[in-house]
């Protein structure tokens, strides 16, 4: 069964159709990439999935359950995590606290137990600290765990952003351009992390990225958007040969006689 099914989703802002009748499916345990030129509607698509936008029509199903109309914070507890394109970390908090926030829905402590910090609440903090430390180890951030995120360099912030999504132990992770603005060695690290989380933890990855080399190497399936329309869907090989995709990226060859 597909883990995430997007069917005929459309949304418009004023006269602009940001998404026009887009459909595709994510199978459990695959790396899926959504590509397209700037302004094609990729981030709008993610916003529809995580609940920041409400599509005008269509349906988005997570494990068979319709999630359109569900509040964003409820979708998180289903197991959908997201890393933002323009880093949206909690700048004044340490890396550790940012990651712990990623586990917010997995924790229970309320106003009273938090305030007393005794017995169950303390045990909970320690248990979740264990899980968070695993993410820290996985992303190789041991030396910065107590550093306030605001003071970190860009590349590390991106990594914390991915870490915060991973801390949720999600079934699907939505990564919005996790490698934007990185140099090639940082990109290599990030690609390795994506492959590892996919292989070791069996997380389904939904990736938005501009670097074609990375996309073609990592992805199992690719969907291509252009001006809100899906113009291609398939394996990397199929996409590379798709004439519509080539047209969108390279333009049309002029007919010369």
């Amino acid at each position, binding site marked *: 069964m597909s883990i995430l099914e997007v069917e005929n989703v459309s949304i418009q802002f004023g006269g602009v159709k940001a998404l026009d009748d887009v459909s595709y499916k994510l199978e459990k345990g695959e790396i899926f990439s959504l590509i397209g030129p700037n302004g094609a509607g990729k981030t709008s698509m993610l916003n529809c999935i*995580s*609940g*920041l936008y409400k599509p005008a029509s269509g349906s988005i199903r997570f494990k068979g359950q319709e999630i359109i109309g569900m*509040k*964003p*914070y*409820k979708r*998180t*507890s289903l197991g959908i995590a*997201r890393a*933002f394109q323009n880093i*949206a*970390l*909690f*700048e*004044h*908090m340490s890396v550790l*606290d940012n990651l*712990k*926030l*990623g586990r*917010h*829905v997995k*924790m*229970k*402590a*309320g*106003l009273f137990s*938090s*305030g*007393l*910090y005794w017995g169950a*609440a*303390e045990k*909970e*903090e*320690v248990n979740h*600290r*264990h899980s968070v*430390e695993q993410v820290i180890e996985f992303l190789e951030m041991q030396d910065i765990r107590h550093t306030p995120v605001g003071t970190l360099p860009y590349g590390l912030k991106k990594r914390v952003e991915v870490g*915060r999504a991973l801390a*949720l132990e999600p079934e699907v992770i939505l990564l919005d351009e996790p490698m934007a603005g990185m140099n090639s060695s940082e990109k290599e690290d990030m690609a390795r992390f994506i492959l590892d989380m996919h292989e070791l933890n069996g997380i389904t990855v939904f990736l938005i990225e501009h670097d074609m080399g990375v996309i073609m190497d990592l992805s199992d399936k690719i969907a291509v958007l252009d001006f809100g329309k899906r113009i291609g869907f398939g394996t990397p090989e199929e996409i590379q040969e798709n004439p519509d995709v080539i047209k969108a990226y390279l333009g049309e060859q002029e007919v010369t006689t």
Partner: protein
Amino acid sequence: MKNPFVMECGNYKTRYDKDMAIFSTKRVKVRMLTLTLLAFLFPLLADSYIIGLATLCAIASIGAIGLNILTGFTGQISIGVGAFLGVGGYTSAILTSTLGWSFWIALPVAGIVTASVGALFGIPSLRLKGLYLAIATLAAQFIILFVISRWTGVTGGTSGMVLQRPSIGSFSLMSASSYYYLCLMILLFTIVYSLNIFRSRTGRAFLAVRDRDVAAQIMGINLFTYKVLSFAISSFFVGVAGALLAHYTMIVSPELYSITVSIQYLAMILVGGLGSILGAVLGAIFITLLPVGLGMFVDQFAVYMPDMQNTLAAFQELAFGAAIILFLIFEPGGLAHIWSNIKNYFKLWPFSY
């Protein structure tokens, strides 16, 4: 014996619960214990005027911590603190004087009533941000004061109400030091509670709402619940402070809870440091004692220049404003930041790098 004044370095933890403790090293614990002991012992040496000032500082600290939870930690600005203090004070006054309840029940009930009123006025915060929310809370200030001064049958209108000091059995907390101890205990509880909140789930959610509300939503935080919760818990402490203040001055009347009080509390957390429990306490002490200090200074000075007394009195107000402006310009982090700078300096002392 190591030098007790230098900061500890190379402090490594082997367990997570140790790493997440409020006071991380033995030395810090000893220091905090000493400070608490000093706070408990000093009434033995001071006269009742000083103890009275200390009581006011403790009460203001409770209120300032409450406001800081809302404004400093959750990022929701509120100009209605004065009125919320009034809700706490009047609730306790009505419960103890009119209905004859015991103070020990009236105090938490005053907190809970203020929390409900605060939560009610916090509901618009889902849609309103920044200055707009400030204006909405300003409306709270005026609505509450209007109700207090017009609902004559219950609140006594503009003439106010008279309260009694609480008593345990037959022992009344009439003396300055006994009431000081009561306020100090409640302040300690408030400090510990809020320190705990901000190292666990609920407090982290508050901080997340302040730093990035969109991301907080995606992390699974219900913005509405947590904003209202923050208003409620903040107002609870403000209400308790209001009740304590009312039983200390033994009178409540509408003009004691004007917008000036709201501004004063905002000044406390600005001068002390937004988003810091220590800052709230330091700021409350600073703002409470500043007029007293300035007044003493003016009195001293007036001896030499008797004809200047009126001018100097005006100067007092000026200095109050100037202090706040200087803090905003030169140390936006507030007193708490100055303190952490001093600590960091001595961490490496006497080597500057």
